[in-house]
């Protein structure tokens, strides 16, 4: 059934179709509508889930972890400062190997207080052990939410589905809502092998001395390494049933491209238009959309990017004291390859400042014109 809905409601429908059993969340702009609709689903009985009200995001995540450990499908959503407040528990969720799924609406961190989009909130949680998937459209948001549960449950890793504040969260688009029966076929009830069991009391997450800690951490990394294959197979299965696929990255018109632009989130859809225009002008430019941020799809990135002469990365974020986070990741992926193309790091659109087709055109054009980047960060749109 096709429906015109916002990105936030696409998340809610995704969690509802996935038959989430426990939801615990705390409202924060621009995420509020996600749990608002879910709480309505719970109240009306459309979704048979326990909605746990809490006083903070820290508690929301704690409740999700505990619920998940009992073997139920668990969901939450947050944004920016809410996500930051969860930080300790994000480590916990991954460390306890709970398949919690969370939507994070990308919102700039304060101060100055901002509700508009940028990626610093989620990228700051890079090392917590969560899988991170960035979305471009409301349809992708819905599809990714459903897939996230399957990925999480197969790997016993928490998954974060990420969408841009307002550009997706509050913008309505046509979304194809899949049939419940097909979603059920794709996502059957899962069984947690080791779950909290009153009849066999054990200590969970207790003191782990240097003799044992290391091996358990090793297992988390191994799970992340398996994730690439798992995400691919989940994606393929989804494609078979629903006819839509996204991949961990998407290469658009990259085959003979001399310059490849790397984007994530909604900037990708703007960039697609620019790429088409420049291709019409005969310029050999391609687009790489990085959907999966963690684990890093190193092989997939290399395969596409290595063929280009130059790479332009758009970062709507900044790791202070270094550079844009995506650019660092791309550089790191290409490191050690003889003849790897230079990486231009464009930082643009922080705190929700608009990223226009013209700006993207100029970025690509500038990359064509410049042999190698003269500085680690190329600022765009900042009043200097």
């Amino acid at each position, binding site marked *: 059934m096709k429906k015109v809905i916002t990105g936030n409601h696409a998340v809610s429908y995704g969690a509802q179709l996935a038959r989430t059993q426990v939801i615990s969340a705390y409202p924060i702009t621009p995420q509020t509508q996600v749990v608002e609709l879910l709480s309505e689903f719970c109240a009306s009985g459309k979704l048979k889930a326990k909605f746990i009200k809490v006083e903070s995001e820290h508690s929301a995540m704690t409740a999700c972890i505990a619920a998940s450990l009992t073997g139920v499908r668990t969901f939450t959503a947050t944004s920016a400062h809410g996500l930051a407040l969860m930080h300790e528990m994000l480590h916990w969720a991954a*460390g306890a190997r709970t398949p919690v799924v969370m939507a994070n609406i990308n919102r700039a961190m304060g101060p100055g207080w901002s509700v508009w989009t940028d990626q610093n909130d989620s990228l700051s949680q890079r090392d917590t052990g969560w899988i991170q998937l960035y979305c471009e459209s409301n349809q992708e948001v819905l599809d990714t939410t459903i897939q996230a549960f399957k990925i999480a449950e197969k790997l*016993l890793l928490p998954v974060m589905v990420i969408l841009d504040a307002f550009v997706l969260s509050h913008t309505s688009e046509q979304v194809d809502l899949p049939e419940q029966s097909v979603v059920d076929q794709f996502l059957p009830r899962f069984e947690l092998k*080791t779950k909290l069991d009153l009849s066999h*009391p*054990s*200590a969970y*997450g207790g003191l782990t001395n240097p003799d*044992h800690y290391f091996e*358990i951490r090793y297992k988390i990394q191994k799970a992340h390494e398996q994730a690439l294959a798992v995400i691919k197979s989940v994606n393929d299965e989804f494609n078979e049933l629903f006819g839509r696929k996204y991949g961990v990255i998407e290469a658009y018109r990259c085959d003979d491209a001399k310059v490849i632009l790397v984007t994530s989130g909604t900037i990708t859809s703007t960039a697609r238009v620019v790429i088409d225009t420049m291709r019409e002008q005969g310029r050999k430019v391609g687009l790489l959309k990085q959907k999966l941020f963690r684990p890093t799809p190193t092989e997939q990135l290399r395969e596409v990017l290595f063929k280009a002469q130059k790479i332009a990365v758009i970062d709507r974020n900044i790791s202070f004291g270094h550079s844009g986070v995506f650019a660092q990741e791309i550089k790191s992926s290409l490191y050690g390859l003889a003849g790897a193309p230079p990486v231009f790091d464009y930082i643009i659109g922080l705190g929700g400042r608009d990223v226009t087709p013209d700006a993207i055109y100029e970025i690509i054009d500038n990359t064509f014109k410049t042999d190698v980047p003269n500085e680690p960060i190329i600022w765009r749109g900042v009043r200097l």
Partner: protein
Amino acid sequence: MKWLDKYKVIHPKLEKETDYPHWAISLTSTLLNRTGTWRIFRPLYQDQIPPCNNECPTNEKIQGYCDLVKQAKFAEAYKLILEDNPFPAITGRVCYHPCENSCNRKDYDDAIAIHCVERFIGDWGLKNVALAKPKVKNKKTVAIVGSGPAGMAAAYYLGLEGYQVTIFEKQTKLGGMLRYGIPAYRLPKAVLDTELKKLIKLGMKSKTKCAVGKDITIDYLRKNYDYVIICHGAHKNRPLGVPNDKAKGVISGLEFLSQINSGKKPKIGKKVAVIGGGNTAIDAARSCLRLGLKPMILYRRTRLEMPAVPDEVDACEAEGIRIEFLVAPVKVLATKKGKVTGIELMRMKLGKPDASGRRRPVPVARSNFKIKLNAIITAIGEQVDLSILTPDIQKTEWGVKVDRLGKTNITNVYAIGDCVTGPKTVVEALGAGKRTAFQIIGATEKIISKTDKPVKFTDLNLDYFEHQDKTKIPEISVAARKKNFKEVHTGYNKEMVLKESERCFSCGVCNKCDNCFVLCPDLSVIKDNGEYEFDYDYCKGCGVCAHECPRNAITMIEESKVEEQ
């Protein structure tokens, strides 16, 4: 370490990464780790005294029966009340309910209407529960002088143990002040008569129209009975003590009420002043209204100092009876033939507190004024008639001298009720009667003293209670009360009583709410057959149970002091 065998497990060898669980989970059962050894404080289920029980002069287990009423266990509730008070249908109507004044709920929204719950159960029991018979046979004889509430309670508890009780009553019918003092609109005679059947069933004999001190002497009773209980009350009228106070048309409040309660219509003039601020004054004024007279009340202090029950004063005013405060009689005005024509009064103001703690009325100079009247009812307090006592019985300034349990200086002679204390309440008389009976029976363990540590409002965890107003007490309209003695309060029905008892906090007494069981982070509250128990093998003594107990029924004590407990 035999208990360890139960949990014996072979530790898997952790040689390589694949031997490990997927996250930090203990490889053996945590039952092995008796975390109770970490405990410094220990929780104990220890019921406390609810303030209502503590304040009740008969020590009724109020929280206990409210809890039973919540579960609609009316028969059990009735039996529980009867352990302490044989006549709940009476006290449910006339008691001034000190329990409600102490109810912790009054600091939250409104005290529980305990008397209404008690009345419902009292009436229900009279209809549905068979009257008790003596439990054992006993040849000991007891003479009770006076059939008021003190004597009735003593007769009941002695009768249960098979004592041969004879009650001596001056009036034609039993009940004392309950029959002759309290008007029928507060206590219908039929209710009193039904309650009195309990005593008849227990084999009590009665000699009515027999005035002790006149028709028969205390000496005679002492010689012919094993025990004598004196409880003839305080019925002696206190005169106004102003000129003309014996004029025709001046009548004592008790005499006036007694006539009405004997079925007579007192012949007094239409415009009546009732002098006094106690319950007798209110009863007399409200009775006047029902006889079609025009009463007003004259009281020398203010409303705050009135000894009458506030609810009764409210009802009195609701019925349109004017109360003139801060006035004292100077002189009764009368014709030459000595017939009342009015009263001269003087304005008063409040001075320093007197011995009773109430502010003393002080005359205002040159404030005299007169009002026209046809009759004056005096209700300024009653006195004990001590003339019936034998000289060897010690007396106080106002009554018979006794110890805490009603013993006089003469062996096997007891005195209880108003004749000891001066005019007090029905419930205090009942309590005294019960305690003396227990004393005679030898059941001294049942005699409960008041604690100075009842559960306080601040001891409760109010997070667990929702606000709920008191269930409205049904009564007939003011218009419907005119010219008749119909009972004013009509009592709760089943639905109301269930709703009202539900409001009870159950202060200090576990009512199996499951909070401790649900919230114990160590799963160390074990529920067995509906009873809770702490599993001290694993309880770490965190105190969550005690803190989250809504009613303070769990106490934390130091481990080092467990032995002392």
